[in-house]
């Protein structure tokens, strides 16, 4: 097939069609990434007069970062945040989709109920949750108390709960979004497979586990990629709920990047963090696709 392709005469049209996108990606993505790689090798701080002009320090920024226990903590927070949000919101999204993929009355209401958090901007959602989390009269605490919870109620101010509270908001916000993808996938499944399974006497659990779930694998792959990237790049609610605190307990990588660049005005270190960011996302996405393509073959 590749030999055939090589023999074909050169056709410019496809390249012309992709040109606008390619230019866009080059200018707004490739160039900033290359610039960050370059700037990461320099010491440059806008708010120190003598460091305003960049000076070469090789891997100095990276060495500093990985020797800084605080940055290690940020990496740890980021991992916890991803592990806390990605699998749970995907599983919930799948369960919601199964629930609302039935032909019962009023299912539209439930679809809307599960999906509506997605429609809200993250900042509005976080502001609502700010009041939910309020100690004493906050809705979240009142509901928990009703269920018998007697633990600490100061969610966003407690160093052991702050990260959990931003995770809860992210799950609440994203599950409904992932549900929509699963729902679309479920409704496109071939009906005859299920009929055949029913004829063969498979029970509901077997159908779900042996047929539905494997058929949804491509959707799951897509959703997990989206969810993973989203977990890295959504920090709006952290600004509103905890500003990364208390004592930096809810600071994640992108929040740290923002602080370094715009609060500390440290261009070198923020460029280095950008590169780390890119490498992690690159590694994840390529692995994800390679693994799935191999299974396909």
């Amino acid at each position, binding site marked *: 097939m590749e030999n055939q392709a090589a023999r074909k005469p050169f056709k410019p049209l496809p390249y012309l069609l992709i040109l606008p996108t390619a230019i866009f990606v080059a200018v707004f993505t490739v160039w900033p990434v290359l610039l960050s790689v370059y700037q990461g090798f320099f010491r440059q701080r806008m*708010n120190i007069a003598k460091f*305003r002009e960049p000076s070469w320090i090789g891997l100095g920024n990276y060495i500093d970062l990985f020797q800084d226990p605080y940055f290690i903590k940020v990496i740890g927070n980021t991992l916890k945040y991803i592990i806390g949000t990605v699998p749970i919101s995907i599983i919930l999204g799948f369960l919601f989709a199964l629930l609302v993929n039935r032909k019962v009355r009023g299912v539209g209401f439930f679809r809307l109920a599960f999906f509506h958090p997605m429609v809200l901007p993250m900042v509005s959602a976080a502001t609502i949750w700010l009041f939910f989390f309020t100690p004493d009269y906050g809705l979240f605490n009142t509901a928990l108390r009703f269920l018998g919870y007697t633990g600490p109620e*100061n969610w966003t101010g407690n160093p052991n709960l702050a990260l959990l509270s931003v995770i809860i908001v992210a799950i609440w916000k994203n599950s409904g979004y992932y549900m929509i993808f699963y729902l679309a996938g479920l409704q496109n499944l071939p009906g005859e497979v299920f009929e055949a399974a029913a004829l063969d006497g498979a029970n509901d659990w077997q159908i779900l586990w042996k047929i539905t779930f494997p058929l949804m694998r491509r959707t799951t792959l897509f959703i997990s990629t989206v969810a993973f*990237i989203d977990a890295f790049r959504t920090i709006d609610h952290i600004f509103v709920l905890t500003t990364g605190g208390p004592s930096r307990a809810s600071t994640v990588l*992108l929040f740290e990047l*923002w602080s370094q*660049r715009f609060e500390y005005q440290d261009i070198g270190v923020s460029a280095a963090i950008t590169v780390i960011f890119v490498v992690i*996302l690159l590694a994840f996405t390529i692995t994800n696709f390679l693994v799935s393509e191999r299974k396909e073959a």
Partner: protein
Amino acid sequence: MSTLKRMLFVLLILMLGLLSACSPAVPAETPMEEAPVEEAAPVEEAAPVEEAAPVEEEPAMEPVTIQVFYPVAVDAPIAAILQGYIDDFQAEYPYITVEPVFSGGYADVQTAIQTTIDGGGEPPALAVLLATAIYDLINADYIVPLDGYVAGMEGGDAYLEDFLPAFLANSYYDDQLWSIPFQRSAVVMYYNVDMFKEAGLEPPTSWQTWAEAAQALTVKESDTTNWGLHFSSDWPYWLFQPLAIGAGQNILEDDCTVTFDDPAVIEAVQFYIDLSAKYGAMPAGVQASWATDTADLASGATAMIAHSSGSLSGLLEQADFELGVMPYPGKEEGTYASVPGGGNFYMMNGIPAEKQDAAWKFIEFITRPEYVADFSINTGYIANRYSAYDTDAMQAYVADVPQALMTRDALQSAGAELATQNLGQVRGIFHDYIQRAINGEMSAADAMAAAQAEAEAALADYCE
């Protein structure tokens, strides 16, 4: 799919992902938001004609357009109010066009300016940024000093002396003037006078009477508690500073010297902890309640809050009880403390001289007493010039709302707001450790000693 195509596809997906990942950090040039041209600019008091600056016959001037970047994340229709002033200004200076660019909070405005300058664009002529941002802005070469303009004014010295000194304190560096106060506030303590009267309590006059009043006004009802005091510590340095000042030592000496580990500062941290641990008058731990405290005071869920004077207008509107305003009581009987806050006008570097001249004319115009008074009345910010309090509009307003004078008077016991070199990092260190102390992860003394050591290291590159 061929391997190459597959890889290209992967890369494309990834790039798109990254593109969106970058978006929060790089707002690029914010598109000019159409300022809401609500012609009904509120309460535009007729400026007394005889007091207005004599309208000099300007020689025919080339038209010039200046941009003003401005934060709007406060509890007042700032955009509409400012647009009213701009219309008046343009009527007086027809050759100058002022384009206001309103965006989020102070941090958003500063981010937008940094991004514009770093990207090689022309910054706005003027911006309203935090008074404490001065050193970062000077070091980055983003702003220009204003001494020349003041010297060129008729009665320039008198112009400066008319500003409340507490507000002008953060405008000087290296004997030069870098900013003009504009929307300024102060830390105050609001209290529910009715609750105090019912309990037979007087407004507190010392830490001791403050804590006891808070204790007496804390009411437990089954599941919930109506606390005597809400004192948020989610962004702690600002509300905390008057405690340290009240104990006898502010948390900084100058732009290169912080005093986090001073015994008086440690005592102030301990007092904050004691308010819940010893007196049971306040929730324990870090209170992430800045956004909800004013609503809690207005609804009677608490008797006192520590907050910004900027919340006065909103509170007066919501509260159905008599609202008291005062500085924090100090440690010793009869002492009080506060700290200023808010934003100043800065003139940006790297813009043509004629735009800078036009920008200064706008600063002069908008700091005229009648506009300062009008702005204060409509927003709740503290009028920042003495002469503003002599205007008829302000006299009438304070007769009606005496609390507006109390916020100004709180400033008489104010110390300087935390403004140091490398402010973002120094402030971050302070926040980190004071929150550890408040959450009981470290003792107040250990936490402040660690904060001092880290802050000194963070200042070393600037202050050798």
